[in-house]
């Protein structure tokens, strides 16, 4: 039970950490100053949530690990984030679409997590839900601006949604740890979020004058530690210092 809970928490937190890392890469590279601030703000929110989750996870292994060990001393195969969040920042439209596709899910997820039997998770969800609803508003807004903007921006957004669509279905898959925690009333049964998710996403994409991809081939594996080739580079970058000088105080 404890092991399942530990793995379950990491499964949630890794999504926030990896997406936070991706957004952090954009610091100073936003299309204008205000958007730059917004994206790094979202990154900060996500990393803050990650810390709460990791600190909680660390208490479950009783002093064996710290939040930093969990972030910096796991290899790619131990990371449980979905493939969607590790996708690179190809262009701004891509960044926004990736964010949107995750935020819609994340907000639904947080709402359900508030009903968990685990008090700590409920507390994290209560704090995070305000942040996540802002993220969702920001990214939906930009999907519409860019989709229903110029011909060029629409083309780029369509390209982004076509490229990312295959990673959406994984959001609703359950790992063994998830299933065990669902039966305890602790985890969110994400498979029940699917219909509402696609309804909401389709609604915004329609408003943005984008075509919903007619794509039934979906990628999965992230939750089991089978990642895309982008993940190794991301971790090499993120973990370099702790790998070179392990067990240091910073």
């Amino acid at each position, binding site marked *: 039970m404890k092991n399942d809970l530990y793995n379950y928490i990491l499964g949630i937190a890794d999504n926030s950490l990896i997406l936070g890392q991706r957004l952090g890469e954009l610091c100073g590279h936003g299309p204008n100053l205000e958007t730059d601030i917004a994206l790094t703000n979202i990154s900060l929110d996500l990393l803050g949530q990650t810390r709460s989750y990791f600190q909680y996870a660390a208490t479950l292994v009783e002093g064996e690990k710290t939040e930093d060990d969990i972030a910096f001393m796991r290899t790619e195969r131990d990371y449980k984030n979905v493939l969607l969040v590790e996708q690179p920042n190809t262009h701004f439209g891509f960044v926004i679409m990736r964010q949107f596709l995750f935020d819609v899910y994340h907000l639904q997820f947080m709402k359900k997590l508030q009903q968990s039997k685990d008090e700590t998770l409920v507390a994290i969800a209560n704090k995070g839900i305000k942040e996540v609803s802002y993220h969702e508003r920001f990214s939906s*807004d930009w999907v519409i*601006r860019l989709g229903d903007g110029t011909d060029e921006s629409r083309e780029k957004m369509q390209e982004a949604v076509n490229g990312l669509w295959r990673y959406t279905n994984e959001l609703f898959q359950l790992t063994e740890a998830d299933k065990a925690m669902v039966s305890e009333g602790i985890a969110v049964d994400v498979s029940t979020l699917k219909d509402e998710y696609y309804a909401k996403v389709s609604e915004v994409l329609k408003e943005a004058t984008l075509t919903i991809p007619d794509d039934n081939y979906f990628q999965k594996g992230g939750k089991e530690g089978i990642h895309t080739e982008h993940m190794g580079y991301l971790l090499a970058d993120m973990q370099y210092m702790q790998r070179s000088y392990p067990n240091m105080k910073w």
Partner: protein
Amino acid sequence: MSKKKWPLWEVFVRSKNGLEHRHFGSLHAADAEMALENARDVYTRRSEGVSIWVVESSNITASNPADNGELFEPAQDKVYRHPTFYNLPDEVKHM
């Protein structure tokens, strides 16, 4: 492709316990809604219970510094123009 215009907006914020909106600064945004979102990130750090106003800078008419004399310098010798002879009761705050 014509680049979207990003006009300047002035931002006024009333903080949680503040009585009135104060001018906090300015920023560029494509429209009012984006200006609000940006103002929230840049100037309020999302502290709860604040109110934000954004106004496109072109909508503000400013007084001309060359007219400062006639506008802002009252005749100092006419003491009755200055309400300095009243003692304010303690109940009246924020004057």
